[in-house]
């Protein structure tokens, strides 16, 4: 679905490569999480997938990016936009309308969604983002998190083959963050939408993503199943990425000689770990 081969990119005026020799295959129906330190090149990588680089942002581009069979350098950004929906990190730059409803409508009409379907799509995606009551509000008067939800709803309404999200939950409250990932999961599982999401909340990635890519200094330093990537805690820490607290707990328990099993990735697995530790105590 997305094939990146030997991709390097340097912003014009930049002193070093923002991306260095990245190769990555993302299959149809994958749910890929991208994590890494600030400045690692995560946003730039999303730009390479949606064609912002090299079409809107100039620089030195080497290598090849093929999305849904289209070479991103040859295909125009409008053509790419029919396949890839993006939620940018800077959502203020993304919004084009002044009223919430229009923001969704604008995208749906541009995308060529049949008129009979538009109303139900708007209703559904506003409800999924938990902002039905904001429908006729002026975007300029929304809180940070409310705006972020509008940007997410607007892309989800389009139901593109691929959705790329750049730190979509940065300003969301904890329950809303989870709800966004639950909605992504259902789009992924039920409609086969390919999801690529940059996210700092490792806990959410561990629970929802199938694969994890770790970036550092413009390079892809680790990529694979979440469980496998998580095992190399030192490498993650070296890249400025934290491990979930339950993984830290596993480490502490190992150090005390109380536990020797797998590193838990989420709360459920952590509960099993604790029960094991405590039952050993019973014998």
């Amino acid at each position, binding site marked *: 679905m997305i094939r990146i081969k030997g991709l390097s990119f340097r*912003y014009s*005026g*930049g002193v070093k490569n923002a991306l260095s020799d990245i190769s990555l295959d993302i299959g149809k129906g994958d749910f890929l999480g991208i994590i*890494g*330190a*600030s*400045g*690692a090149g995560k*946003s730039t990588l999303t730009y390479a997938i949606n064609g912002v680089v090299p079409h809107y942002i100039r620089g030195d581009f080497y290598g090849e990016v093929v999305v849904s069979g289209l070479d991103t350098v040859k295909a125009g950004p409008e053509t790419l936009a029919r396949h890839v929906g993006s939620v940018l*990190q*800077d959502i*203020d730059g993304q919004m084009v309308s002044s009223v919430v409803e229009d923001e969704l409508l604008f995208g749906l009409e541009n995308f060529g969604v049949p008129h009979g379907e538009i109303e139900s799509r708007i209703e559904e995606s506003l409800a999924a983002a938990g902002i039905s009551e904001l429908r006729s*509000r002026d975007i300029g*008067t*929304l*809180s*940070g*998190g*409310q705006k972020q*939800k509008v940007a997410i709803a607007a892309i989800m309404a389009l139901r593109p083959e691929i959705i790329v999200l750049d*730190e979509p939950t*940065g*300003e*969301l*409250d*904890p*329950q*809303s*963050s*989870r709800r966004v990932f639950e909605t992504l999961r259902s789009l992924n599982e039920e409609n086969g939408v390919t999801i690529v999401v940059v996210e*700092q909340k*490792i*806990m959410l990635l561990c629970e929802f993503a199938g694969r994890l890519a770790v970036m550092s200094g413009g390079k892809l330093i680790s990529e694979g199943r979440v469980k496998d990537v998580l095992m190399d805690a030192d490498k993650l820490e070296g890249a*400025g*990425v*934290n491990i*979930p*607290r*339950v993984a*830290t*707990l596993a480490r*502490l*328990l190992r150090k*005390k000689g*109380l536990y020797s099993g797998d590193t838990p990735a989420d*709360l459920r697995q*952590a*509960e099993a770990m*604790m*029960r094991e*530790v*405590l039952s*050993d*105590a*019973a014998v």
Partner: protein
Amino acid sequence: MLRFENVFFYRESANTISEVSFDLREGEFAALIGENGAGKSTLCRLCNGLLKPASGRVTVCGHDTATVSTSRIARDTGFLFQNPDMQLCQNTVYGEIMFGLEYALSDPEERKRRTGEILELFSLDGGRDPFSMSRGERQHVALASILACKPRLLILDEPTTGLDYRECVTIMGIISRLHSDGTTILMVSHDMEVVADFAVRALVLSKGRLIADGPVRQIMKDKKVLDEASLLPPQIPALAMLIGGDFSDVLTADEMAETAERAVRQKGARK
């Protein structure tokens, strides 16, 4: 240091600030938490006089915000906006910090010296253009520029949003050092781990009302309050609640490992 007395604030939209009262004493570190749209950023703007209460009173360092100018308040109060781009306006990092110091330090030589110190403390390259930096890097610059003024009261609206883990640790380290040096802090955050690690007191805002005000340790276990404000406990307290018993008061991974060790030893001894 910061007092709200029965404060109301209205907007055309449904949600406002209603009946909010609290008193933040000198040297306290409080987190302001609550769902999107709860009114946290609005409350922050009421603190520094950018907004005035419709009724009730807000007092900052002894000044009533309704009667004193915002620049007077700004002399004691550092304010970080939710979006760093609302704050940055110069084309170099150096210029940005110098600009931020204009009110605080009148002597240009001293301003230069302080700017140098801050650039070093934050490991920033003064020559860079903030707008060619990543979001996390820009956030770093905005925070550096506020801390340069050494405010007595710091109002931080989501200081770690857009930061990676390492930066989050660095920034929170700086903030907690300021706190140990006596700075009073009110911090909005959606990251309950940051709240549990650093704040002592939590103010929970939901639909414009203060629905809880107490020790972080206690609020992170209050399912009813957390649910009402669309919050979730951090992983370790959530795990502690699942395990129960001796663990129900645990807040951090260290505490949990120690409690487990104790439990294992006790059972071993009994055997």
